[in-house]
């Protein structure tokens, strides 16, 4: 009996997420967005969430739907404003949601640090910019750096391509993006996949996220969504 639980529905997979939780949400735009887990989270009802993600939602699906449902208190992300981020834009401009902008590489590395047990690190990104205001800096070998702290999640919601029953994961193309890093950085990592294979069904050399990082897995029907900019 593996520790990772393979569940029958997305609703079971998101059970227990508390009000006020910090939730890491995978995806770059819509690629890698865990749509089914987010829809289940909306049904589940948790509110006052802090969401850590690259973007702040596109259109009215996925993360944008969670925002629209009024469940999010704060978004920590690198790139909230996009052509189709109107749900977030309205909430932000009316003061109903808090925003913390983090450069994309620091966002990823801060989660990597959390997952790797690193208490902080010095990054050259954002030195001399408004995002450096009030921050601790250090000069190392003639270069300036800013101190960055880890970002931990209570939960991570990510989408992968396939899992085996132990929770080993492989991803598809650029939908991999934040998934492997977020999987390491949360107390409970919940994954939606297109397919769950028997244990041993994934070549060990090809595993991207080893099972130790994965707590709950659910297979969902593959969704064909339209990508912004497609022509």
């Amino acid at each position, binding site marked *: 009996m593996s520790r990772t639980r393979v569940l029958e529905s997305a609703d079971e997979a998101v059970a227990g997420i508390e009000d006020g939780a910090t939730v890491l949400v995978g995806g770059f735009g819509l690629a890698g967005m865990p749509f089914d887990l987010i829809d289940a989270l909306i049904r589940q009802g948790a509110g006052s969430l802090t969401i850590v993600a690259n973007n702040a939602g*596109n259109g009215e699906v996925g993360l944008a739907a969670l925002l629209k449902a009024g469940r999010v208190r704060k978004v920590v992300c*690198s790139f909230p404003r996009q052509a189709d981020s109107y749900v977030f834009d309205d909430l932000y401009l009316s003061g109903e949601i808090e925003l913390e902008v983090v*450069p994309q590489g620091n966002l990823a590395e801060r989660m*990597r640090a959390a997952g790797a047990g690193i208490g902080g690190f010095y990054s050259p990104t954002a*030195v*001399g910019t408004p*995002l450096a205001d009030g921050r601790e800096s250090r000069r190392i070998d003639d270069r300036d750096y800013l101190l960055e702290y880890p970002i931990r999640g209570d939960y991570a919601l990510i989408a992968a391509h396939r899992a085996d029953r132990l929770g080993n994961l492989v991803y598809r193309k*650029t939908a991999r993006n934040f998934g492997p*890093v977020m999987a390491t950085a949360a107390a409970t990592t919940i994954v939606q996949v297109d397919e769950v294979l028997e244990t041993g069904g994934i070549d060990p050399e090809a595993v991207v996220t080893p099972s130790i990082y994965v707590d709950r897995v659910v297979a969902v029907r593959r969704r064909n969504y339209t*990508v912004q900019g497609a022509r």
Partner: protein
Amino acid sequence: MTEFTNATARIEHLDRGALSMDELALVIANDIPDGSFVNLGIGYPTRIADHLPVDGGVVLHTENGMLGMGPVAYGSDIDPDLTNAGKVPVMELPGASYFHHADSFAMMRGGHLDVCVLGAYQVSAAGDLANWHTGKPGAIPAVGGAMDLAIGAKDVFVMMTLFGKDHSPKLVPSCTYPLTGVGCVSRVYTDHAVFEVGGDEVVVTETWGISVEQLRSRLDVGVVSKPG
């Protein structure tokens, strides 16, 4: 003096107007060494990809976790799991590789990329870059990967129009928009001229539809000229 005049004449193309953005993309593509690992950001610079020689061995990096990015995908080639940094569907070239975000930005921050080309609101003579935030009240700040890219690649080029819609120069003594990076830009490619930056004065290496003297009168920065 004669020598100087000849040198100046060699870099000025006064028999034509300013470059279009596609013509500028070609100029930049020609300056990217064969075999380079290159990030083209989002927006206008992505057009440079269309002008890179097919046999030049340039490998494109996209921040969302890919080396070996191919051209924009159309129709049945569109795969929602395969997009560029602008979230536009793209193709995969033979020899491509995928990696997660922390690796993608380690590649960038670690100085492994040879060139990145970014758009800009403003660049200073010293090479400071402003391209993420207008600073206007009500504007939603969105930095994406710009600050990581600005300090990461070995060479950071900017591709922009030289003058804004209000005709004010975007190559400035000191940026008035919020900074993305300090002293990070090495070269500025504009529709009117190419500049090397990073010192007290800017060095113009080629112009289109404008003379070096005209640039001197329209820019608030010191301009010296040198054939590229």
